[in-house]
């Protein structure tokens, strides 16, 4: 088992190295993508371009630039923005992490609870109208672009019905610190939480239902029925247990991806200053160091989440453990 864990760790480091190089190549070595011309602006004279290249260290060979950048991100932490040269990028990224975590953790709690509820109810009433209704609702949830759903939510809660009893409690868009204003933090995040969770509620409900129904065909369920256990007990104690393994795997991957930047669209629509919003703002003025750092941070988070899921899997599953 130790070997399997070490192997996984090695693979993780390899993928991280690969991603860092890929990101670097995309931004600095794509044919036609000259960062210097971007900093200098359109129509800059060759002398200015040359000066910019020298001043930003872009005249050095790619591998030197790569190592300098990696050193600045991970070791010295003093990478500065191209647009605002006094601005340190690493602390700026670290500042946004609590916002993204607040958003994603809240949404995750919602989607786990409601996803499980929907999956279990649909599997228990499979074939009935309730099952069909829940599955159609789930599919609609999966089919909605999250940024558009966010706009619908804003339209309803900030404008059209803001003055009615239903949504008068909704504060203006923006993020409030948990430590300064816990109530404000909670209220501003309720609608973003729901928006982000809806897609995953649909997805998890559908996945859980399918895996429960598959589990119910197994031999050990027939044995449990033969023992005279109640249908509820069979569903919740026997079938659900096996189904939860895939549920947990899925959760690890999705949670990692969201904290790693997939929540970008939700953050942009609700004006929450998280990692994704920082990336988006840097996008507007092509501030490469910020984009590099957030993309790097995000992909590392995803890689680590994937590795963690695999490790938990190795620890949980006796078959994998043995081999």
């Amino acid at each position, binding site marked *: 088992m130790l070997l399997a864990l070490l192997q996984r760790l090695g*693979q993780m480091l*390899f*993928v991280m190295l*690969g*991603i860092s190089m*890929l*990101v670097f190549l*995309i*931004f600095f070595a*794509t*044919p*036609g*993508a000259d960062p210097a011309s*971007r900093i200098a602006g359109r129509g800059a004279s060759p002398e200015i371009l040359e000066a910019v290249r020298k001043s930003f260290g872009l005249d050095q060979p790619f591998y030197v630039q790569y190592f300098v950048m990696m050193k600045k991100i991970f070791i010295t932490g003093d990478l500065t923005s191209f647009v605002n040269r006094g601005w340190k990028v690493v602390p700026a990224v670290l500042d946004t992490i609590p916002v993204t975590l607040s958003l994603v953790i809240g949404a995750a709690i919602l989607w786990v609870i409601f996803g499980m509820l929907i999956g279990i109810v649909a599997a228990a009433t499979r074939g009935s109208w309730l099952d069909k209704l829940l599955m159609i609702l789930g*599919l*609609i949830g*999966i*089919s*909605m*672009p*999250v*940024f*558009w*759903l966010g*706009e*619908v939510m*804003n*339209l309803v809660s*900030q*404008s*059209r019905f803001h003055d009615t009893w239903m949504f008068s409690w909704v504060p203006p868009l923006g993020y409030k610190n948990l430590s300064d204003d816990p109530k404000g933090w909670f209220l501003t995040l309720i609608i973003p939480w729901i928006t982000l969770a809806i897609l995953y509620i649909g*997805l998890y409900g559908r*996945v859980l239902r399918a895996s429960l129904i598959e589990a119910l065909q197994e031999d050990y369920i027939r044995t449990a029925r033969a023992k005279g256990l109640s249908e509820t007990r069979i569903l919740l104690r026997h079938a659900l247990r096996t189904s939860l393994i895939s549920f947990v795997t899925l959760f690890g*991957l*999705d949670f990692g*991806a969201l904290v*790693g*930047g*997939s929540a*970008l*669209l939700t953050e*942009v629509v609700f004006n929450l200053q998280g990692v994704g919003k920082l*990336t*988006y703002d840097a*996008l507007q003025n*092509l501030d490469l160091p910020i*984009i590099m750092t*957030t*993309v790097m941070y*995000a*992909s590392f988070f*995803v*890689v680590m989440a*994937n590795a963690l899921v695999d490790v938990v899997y190795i620890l949980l599953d006796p078959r994998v453990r043995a081999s």
Partner: protein
Amino acid sequence: MTAETIATRRVSRGPWATAVRRLARDRAGMAALLLFMVILIICLLAPVYASWAGVDPFTSTLDATVTIDGNAIPVMEQSTEGLGLGYNPIGPTWRLGSYFLGADNQGRDVMARLLYGGLTSLLIAGAATLLTLTLATVLGLAAGFFGGLTDIILSRILDILWAFPVYLLAISLSIVLITHGIAIGPITIESGSLWLPIFIIGIVYIPYVARPIRGQVLSLRESEFVLAAIGLGVPSHRILLRDILPNVSTTLIVFVPLMMALNMLTESALSFLSIGVQPPDASWGSIIQDGQGLLYSRPWVAMAPGIAIVLCVLALNVLGDGLRDALDPRSKIRLGRG
């Protein structure tokens, strides 16, 4: 029962005919197919609609007027809010041919843009799906069949792409390519071309398809008919084309609607972040972005394309479910991460 009747009964239809019959009996799947076809046909009629309504959906027409009940009404109305300085585009008239869904902030007919945008969105999603499936099949077949060093290198590359969050990879590629375009060997894609989002979206989902294909090929490679073909000295390309490709084709077909659904959502997200389809072209995502500033005053500009996306993606997802049940009930293809 004689042996003869049993024999005639056993003559089964081919797997494809069986699948088509199963799909035809799936009412939800058929309804979804119908809905998708209707959306497609309506979008294909975009040029007809625009010329019939006499509007140009791609240039700003701030001084246009629309005739309602014999009265000519300017498309941009003087704002009644605040100091009354700005201009507001008119809202929906709900009359086909005369600014049905109102105008956007450049005085363009939203309905005409919606139809053209749908055409763009469908084109990008379809072409990107084709690109993903082609490249993923080649990679998956090569990695699974040849094994060894080929497999190790290809699998590691796929691992890296897989671990890269889809939106961030797409965003990174878009930022770099959207302003300068790209030139790889003989292929040159100019900035602002529709091929850029197709290329980007087509690339980022390759591992999602290539990994399951590789897995399937790995097990097919050990199956008796393939081992027999190898033993007989049949050349590799022939085995791949004649024995292995037909066996992974059901998986590929199931992936088509699911990938298209995913690609539509990705395209709309990129265009919403203004790194997808570039103006003057419109897509459903970019129209939602145009409508963002008008969200509280003229919500239909952003709402209508969103509803169109939901309907289209919903139809594709239902169709994908139906296809999977019809072709390959035991498969566990699932998309939807990110």
